[in-house]
């Protein structure tokens, strides 16, 4: 199982969504599909049409910058980060 760490701006939007979630997924996109099934509407908060990651949402897989098609290993650590921006 890969482990996702989600940004603190996301968790208040969905009942019961924790900061850390384990998923059984082959790619980042698959992981988001799994989250979408459990928390409908979640994918739209991270992705825009294309589909693509939103401009200010960055994903890292095992510390490397990732995109939706990046592959996950069974023990991958995935960080979903709301970019440090705004004011």
């Amino acid at each position, binding site marked *: 199982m890969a482990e996702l760490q989600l940004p603190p701006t*996301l968790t208040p*939007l969905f009942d019961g969504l924790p900061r850390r979630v384990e998923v059984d997924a082959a790619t980042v996109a698959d992981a988001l599909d799994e989250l979408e099934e459990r928390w409908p*509407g979640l994918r739209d*908060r991270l992705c*825009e*049409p294309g589909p693509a990651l939103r401009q*200010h*949402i960055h994903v890292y897989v095992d510390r490397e910058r990732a995109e939706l098609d990046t592959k996950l290993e069974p023990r991958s650590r995935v960080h979903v980060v709301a970019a440090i*921006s705004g004011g």
Partner: protein
Amino acid sequence: MARTLLLIGTRKGAFVLESEDRRDWTLRGPLCESWPVYHAIHDASSGAMYAAAASEWHGSAVWRSDDLGETWALSSEGIGYGDDDPRKVSKVSSLAARNGRVLVGVEAPGIFQSSDGGETWSLLTTLAGQPGSELWDDPANQPPGHLGISALMLDGDDDARFWAIVQGVGSFETGDGGQTWTPRNKGLRADWPRPHEEVGFCVHRLVRSLSDPARMYQQNHVGVHRSDDGGESWFEITDGLPSEFGFAAAVHPHDRDTFYVIPLDPGHARCMPDGQAAVWRTRDGGEKWEKLTRGLPQQHAHLGVLRAAMAIDRHDTPGLYFGTSTGQLFASADEGDNWTEIADHLPSIWSVEVATVD
């Protein structure tokens, strides 16, 4: 006892103020997880509140509250042009709701509707084929602010009739629920070249009299204008005001000839002239104007008020409310004669709406 609610949309969340006498107010917020809220409304027919919000991180969504703002949930299901469309929804910017239907205007310009209280949405119209739409459909050709459909205005009786403002283009009216549209900009002024006769006007705020639906007013980028035929034609009533520029406007709910604007310096400042806060009122449909300042700051008050940031209630003696880009909220319980600051230090205020609830 009936309570007056003010719904405030700000750069960092929605706020709700509540009062039984329109003098003592309690403030709640920030709501909607402090998302930037472009417009927040109360739907009298359902009792729900809606807030159009767009997060830089998490995209656009409409928030709904069924308990007058205590708790909120959001949805954007169906709000979007699809994976293969070059147009993107950069923000949801304007709301209207009545009788089981909620409308939200977005940028790139389009209107989405919901018939299930904002849980799911579908595209109603992009006003495709209207003169000028080839320009506003170009993602690279959006005006500063990128509001898209900057306002929606419902008819008082006919659910199929409403008006939409396309930012920087003009006003359009539909009489068939959004299937067909007619530009409503005849007689307006523009100080710039326009590729089409019927559009290319910068309508900032459109309001309509409740006592005479044929009477409309608008604050335009250039001038204040009046219509006596439901928006089919317009004539200018700017004379007597200190500036032709402004954003906000309100019409008295019981007197079609009483109308309010907040003139602003048209330059980069876009603040009230001379550092003196003032609302201007006409009692005769724009023949004469009076400057209302009692209770408003008159020194070093460089206040800006945006297009959706003034509202008027429907009490026998109506109350007026406006919010500033620097987070002050002012109220008058006597048609603008006397003003009080009822909140300060809020985030930049983008919209003010008023509702009365039991």
